[in-house]
């Protein structure tokens, strides 16, 4: 019953994002025999499309100078022109997918399922998806009728990448079908993130703090512990929003991607955006006074405690060694 599955490929510097292979796995969870078609929109993307074709039987290429820089407003129009009305489109729930997909669902008159972490089999034209709400504290099944297609944003990292690369697919040039590329939002430039005093991406041990630190004055507690451990202090987003630490100290998809050996998550709830910046399978210790914090689900070791009480005790014990 279901329509053809398409995946939208995001990339950086000509290299496909990890989501390119994760979406293959996601498509197969929707329909085990699915042979999804990859859609690549960019400028001068022949090599990129060739690489993607290793994993997809069919790659639709839309190559135009207008896409030398990312612009979801224009890309949305192109997808409206080339996708079939009953198409199932999977995109990564990243900053581009969030920009592009909700509006596309309105224009395509298809339902939209954001930030999806799993699928259950399609029954007739009903698709059941798994999502999370309240920062990961609750999961929910949502159902939608996909007879008129569906736009689905898939959480980065939620599916294992399909590394088989056995498709040796063909690239089909759809550039001529792109249509009107005018836009009321014009790209100017990309401003690189500021470099801070410490490079947390090169540290083996991070003492990372979140909302649980409660007050700017309490950051000293984490700094004392980091000093005793020979570690460095990093943080989650709310600490940077409050301007208590520099942006360069932030771990997460909108901050730094770190690969420590040991990660102490102190008073951090564990949103997927935060965990998206934590790579290399570190030993994760979570300390949180909320026993239901999602961070405890992914940590190796958990301690239910108020960090304001616990961290000074730990610092003292380490200093006494």
């Amino acid at each position, binding site marked *: 019953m279901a329509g053809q599955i398409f995946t939208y490929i995001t990339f950086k510097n000509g290299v496909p994002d990890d989501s390119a292979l994760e979406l293959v796995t996601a498509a197969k969870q929707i329909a085990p025999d699915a042979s999804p078609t990859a859609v690549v929109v960019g400028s001068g993307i022949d090599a990129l499309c060739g690489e993607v074709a290793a994993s997809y039987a069919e790659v639709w290429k839309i190559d135009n100078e207008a896409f030398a820089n990312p612009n*979801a*407003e224009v890309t949305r129009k192109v997808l409206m022109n080339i996708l079939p009305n009953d198409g199932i489109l999977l995109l990564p729930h990243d*900053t581009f997918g*969030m*920009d*592009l*997909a*909700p*509006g596309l*669902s*309105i224009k395509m008159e298809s339902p*939209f399922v*954001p*930030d999806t972490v799993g699928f259950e089999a399609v029954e007739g034209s009903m698709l059941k998806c798994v*999502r*999370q709400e*309240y920062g*990961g*504290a*609750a*999961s*929910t*099944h*949502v*159902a*939608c*009728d996909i007879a008129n297609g569906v736009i689905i944003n898939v959480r980065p990292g939620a599916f294992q990448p399909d590394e088989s690369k056995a498709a040796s697919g063909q690239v089909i040039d759809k550039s001529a079908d792109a249509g009107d590329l005018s836009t*009321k*939002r*014009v790209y*100017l*430039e*990309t*401003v690189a*993130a500021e470099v801070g005093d410490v490079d947390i991406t090169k540290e*083996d*041990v991070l003492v990372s703090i979140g909302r649980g630190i409660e007050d700017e004055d309490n950051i000293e507690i984490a700094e004392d512990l980091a000093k005793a*451990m*020979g*570690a460095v202090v990093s943080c989650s987003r*709310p600490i940077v*929003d409050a301007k208590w630490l520099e*942006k*360069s100290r932030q771990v997460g998809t*909108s*901050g730094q991607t770190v690969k420590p050996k*040991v990660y102490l998550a102190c008073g951090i709830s564990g949103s997927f955006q935060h965990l998206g910046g934590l790579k290399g399978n570190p*030993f994760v210790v979570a300390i949180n006074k909320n026993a*239901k914090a999602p961070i*405890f*689900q*992914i940590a190796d*070791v*958990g301690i*239910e405690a108020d960090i304001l*009480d*616990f961290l000074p*005790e730990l610092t003292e014990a*380490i200093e006494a*060694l």
Partner: protein
Amino acid sequence: MEILVCVKRVPDTAENEIEVNKDGTGIETDDLVYSVNEWDNYAVEEAIQIRDDVGGSVTVVSVGDEESEEVVRREMAMGADNGLLLTDDAFEGSDGKGTATLLKAAVEKGNYDLILTGAQADDGAAQVGGMLAAMLDVPYASLVNTIEVLDDKKLKIGREIEGGNQEMSEIELPCVLSIQTGINEPRYVGIRGIRKVASIEIPVYGTGDLGVSADSVGEAGAGVKRLDYYVPELGEGAEMLEGSTEEIVGKLMELLKAKGGIK
């Protein structure tokens, strides 16, 4: 500049332990502390700063039950000029498209140059702003973390993208922007501020006032329906260290030494 800011009343995840209820139909709502969605608060602050800079007015609108009036009033205490509450039994159970449909109807009753939403709310969907823009056929940008008014037809904006980088664009008005946290420092609202706006009448619009058909919104119009709520199981879960603080510290130090966490 006439600015509309869309806000939502949500359980405050910083103040509550969110638990799934026994029937799996939702979360435990007893004793929940509610507040304005954090992202929306940044959007209202940004709107107020733009108005103070270039003139105009700020209107705050919320889709929700009658209790949502309290968050509209709170944002008026911050400095928004007008409030608007969209409430009707028929709106309950709206999905993102239903909410955007209601907001579109409210937008069309006014004459707004700029519409702001928070980048996301408690359901983590990040969808209503983009849908609203598409319905209104105006340009959209998400995750906006800087706004500069160039003239009465154009803004220069920055979007927060991966790695803390910022994508700068020019966007034509009218437009819809979703606002990322950290764009500004929202002002504090005290009891006195709330008292000042306590007696201001906040108009309430239902199905008839908005001219939307009841079957296009709410549960009836929802193309995406929630079936249940349950406690997520991601991975195997942490080994919880138990005992006195001293015992836990001891166990943790052994583990840290073994894993290279103490140099």
